């Protein structure tokens, strides 16, 4: 899954986000519709699609959508 597909699928999971809201360099926490509940949706999305688990430290580290994607890719290398 490349980053464009990652973003498209993630936006599909978060109904509150209009398609096209997220870009690789978007600071997702600053998106108007973003809430703390969405962190859980991201964890569920990543677990379901990549079978890796994001923890609190991972999420704190990830500022942009691209950071999230890269953390997932790193974790996949270590599986």
């Amino acid at each position, binding site marked *: 899954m490349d980053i464009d597909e990652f973003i498209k699928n993630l936006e599909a999971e978060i*109904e*509150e986000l209009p398609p096209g809201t997220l870009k690789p360099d978007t600071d997702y926490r600053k998106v108007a519709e973003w*809430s*703390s*509940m969405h*962190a*859980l*949706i991201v*964890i*569920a999305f990543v*677990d*379901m699609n990549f079978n890796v*688990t*994001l*923890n*609190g430290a991972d*999420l704190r580290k990830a500022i942009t959508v691209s950071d999230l994607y890269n953390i997932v890719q790193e974790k996949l290398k270590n599986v």
Partner: protein
Amino acid sequence: MFSAVKNISFKGLSACVPKTTARTLDYDWISEDERKMFIKNTGVEERRVANGKTTTADLCEKSANTLLEKLEWERNSVDVLIFVSQSPDYILPATAAILQHKLGLKKTAIAFDINLGCSGYIYGMYVLSNLITSGACKRGLLMAGDKSTLSTNFKDKSTYPLFGDAGTVTALEYDEKAEPVFFNLFTDGSGYEAIMIKDGACRNHISEKTFVTQKIEEGIERAPKHLILDGIEVFNFALREAAPSVQNILAESGTKQEEINYFILHQANKLINESVRKKCKIEPKRVPYSIQKYGNTSSASVPLTMLHAIKNELEQKPLHLLLSGFGVGYSWGNCILKTNHVTCTEISELD
């Protein structure tokens, strides 16, 4: 650990909830959009809230009276009573002792408390089953429930709209013809801070600070007397441990996934439970919910979901069930058992 316990018959099930309903849509600490999002992701549309005086023990006492009557069990035939809860009547004595007296059980009965939450029903079933398996105790009552709403702060959106109050009673009986009940149980105390009430017991005595509310983040304010819930860490724990443990007990007990009629999961929240369900590749119709109506009811959630969603089937036909509890501790476990014509009461209410 994994264990098979013989001679246990699952005889009866009963539950009682407070009469007062709190609706998530009315929770005006957060915006209407946030309320709708909360409902969509946690599943909690409404929950029951006990008044100032009613305790978990009161809810369990009413459940026990109703169940003993329906089972037609003489009170002096009950050999053991276990009260699983994190909201006892007092720091001491054990609430189970008070309930032994209130229910009029005999003095030769064993009665004690177990301090566990989300996993408590599975642990309680395991302990009670092991007291009965030898035949030393013939009949036992497992009480499981919590008044969690006492510990949540209105201005904490991560806990206040999630938890509901309930008390349940399960009746087990010695039966040499019963098929084995399988258990697997686990603990990882490294996660003890993820779900926690910090003040009020021995480590942090009650002080003035206990009652001082602080802002933690947007929408979350609480004092050290209130319940903390780290949603992200708990979600991680559930994915990492709960889902694999369900698959493990199936393998270790030699049970095929498709043989199980229903998987009754602790009602943590819908997002967590759906993730566990999908990871275990179980169809939605075999994973019933009660969270929409009662919220997360701690150790009561498994038996409450059974009564809410599959009561008629429990009463009318043999069922093969997998019960799963996971959370505070961290503590988690599963139980596979066969039931046959269980005596069930309606979910009753208490003011």
